[in-house]
């Protein structure tokens, strides 16, 4: 798993929001954390994140 995801602060128990996705199953644009960091990551990288939806 890309360590980079964690290094950039997307840690276990962090709340995040998917804002956009590039066309043809392109990368995801997500926003997370208290500092509202924004990162881009590919679908296959995002698959490593286990998600619990917050509704």
């Amino acid at each position: 798993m890309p360590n980079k995801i964690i290094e950039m602060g997307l840690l276990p128990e962090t709340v995040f929001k998917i804002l956009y996705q590039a066309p043809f199953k392109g990368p995801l644009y997500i926003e997370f954390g208290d500092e509202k960091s924004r990162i881009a990551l590919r679908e296959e990288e995002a698959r490593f994140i286990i998600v619990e939806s917050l509704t």
Partner: protein
Amino acid sequence: MQQTENNKQILLVGNPNVGKSTVFNLLCNKKQKTGNYAGVTVASHSGKYVFKDEEFEVIDLPGSYSIYPTSEDEAIFSKFLIDEQQNYAGVVYILEALSIKRGLLLFQQIQDLGIPILLVVNQIDQAERRGINIDLEGLSKELNVRVLQTNAKQNQGIEELRDEIFKNSFTKSETVSFEIPLEQKGLVFKILTETKEKNQYKIWTLLASETYLGKLETVKDQMNDDEVKCLVPKRLQTQETIRRYQKIDGVISKVLSKKPQFKELLTEKLDKVLVHPFWGYVIFATILLIIFQSVFFLAEYPMNWISDFFLGLSSLANEHLPEGPINSLIANGIIPGIGGIAVFAPQIGILLYFLYLLEDSGYMARVIFLMDRFLRPFGLNGKSIVPLVSGTACAIPAIMSTRNIENVKERLITILVTPFMTCSARLPVYSIIIGLIIPNKYFGGISYKALALMAMYFLGFFMSLMASLVLKKVIKSKGKSFLVMDLPSYKMPLFGYDLKLTLGKVWEFITGAGKIIFLFSIVIWFFSYIGPKQKEDEIVATNVKLEQSYLAKMGRGIEPAIAPLGYDWKMGVGILTSFVAREVFVGTMSTLYSLDEEAPEGKIIDKMRNDTKPNGEKVFSFATGISILFFYAFAMQCVSTLAVVYRETKSWKWTMAQLCGMSGLAYIASLIVYQLFK
């Protein structure tokens, strides 16, 4: 800590996008340069400033998130940080107030390594505007470090920073904030006692790093086989990162207070449109179009001034210098040669300036986001779009910027195909040839000539993709490819700073090319001046007619090889000399046509246009022209680029493969094209 003689060197460190370059720029008002230095291939900036009569050197290292590198950039950073400890006084660590949490990870890692460090919190006003309050004193106590505040954009806090550096306010931590996890505690302590290393975190990094931080080998003899087998460096890194963030959360809760919601309104609004699945691409294409239009139309006025200036200079030289070959060399060779390059300065400048502004504003990250999906089938990464686009200015900085591409194969492919992008050195050649062979007609308001130029740009881009496809199949895959990239908030680019960078690069281009052209003008002139001896008692004949010179002999020598491409011996000489640098072609043609007394009068382009073969046909026919265009589009004709490729790939094999592959392709393509159109 050992103090060396020259210990007034400090390092600027921090995450990417925190404003390091702004701080760097403000600190070093004295002298700055980019590129290599001190035997370390770091593509970063080093600069100097004077404070209280002492000189300080600042090295701006590439941005990084953690001491464990994932890309070449980050590896260089970590290696330099650790290996060069004897040479620098300390690290100035820059945190952006809005992303303190993320920035503290690397900060604590460096602190734990026992490296002297000083903390700078930048852009506090931005945080305050969003209702976030940071207690700097508290931060200083919690982290055990001197904390300074700056507002780099407003030039605040820089003088205080210089003062603190002068007072050597760096603190070297005696303790380690990271707690070694239980499973590895025993191992770490065992190695600690056996190697007499005092710093447990240093041992930990040896176990947790894979390559650049000093190798596992150095401690392997202290470990037994089972221990080595259980070690998965990446897992240790993950553990460390998670634990560190937990601690950081604790620190932040004590030091940061904020009102509940803050919204990054501007970035949100802009991204709705800029990253839109349809409009995002339309806007990107439009921006590219605007840039290229500006390059060619805005640049026209300054280009004419420069052209007139050199023409004037040339006739001045002609009138005032004594008659003879030197007169001809200077007035008709060197001056027009250099003028031929200088005239492109406005175009290169405008293009570069746009690119710097786009990168600075944060927009390029969105472009990468948009392009990733489309570049991947070619073996490239979304991040490759940046070198490809900046390759339209010059391949050299473009190739150096590939260091942020983590995957080795993707990076190699990007390096190898970037030179196919139409760089500014090709423009002089394209300009002249298109001017010669394309008629002055218009299609829907756009001139044929402009369309032809656009077509050349597309050709370069198309070829870079095709070459990537081929290389994708040929190069072995190694390691994972990934994108995971920060999308910074949009910010107003630093217009002045970027302008400074642009002018610097343009000047570099002109003086670099200028030196080569100057040299080659002399070389060409010399070989056109002497020829095979005509009388018995000579070694060589001097002051011969161009047709009888050694130069002509060389050109005719390769004529059989280039005739099928539609070239005559003069073009042959032009191509030979351009293998050093493409723009030399124009200088060479200038010199050749100036030296030829039988050539028609006037501007170089008119001379070329009116040049006819013995049988009356034009030398620069349509077919020949197209052939030259294709040749210059594909051939590797730039010694400087080859040098950078070698430096970045560290491989003779790939550098030579690029040289031969591109040149071979150029030969075949020109051959086919000439035969088709003649």
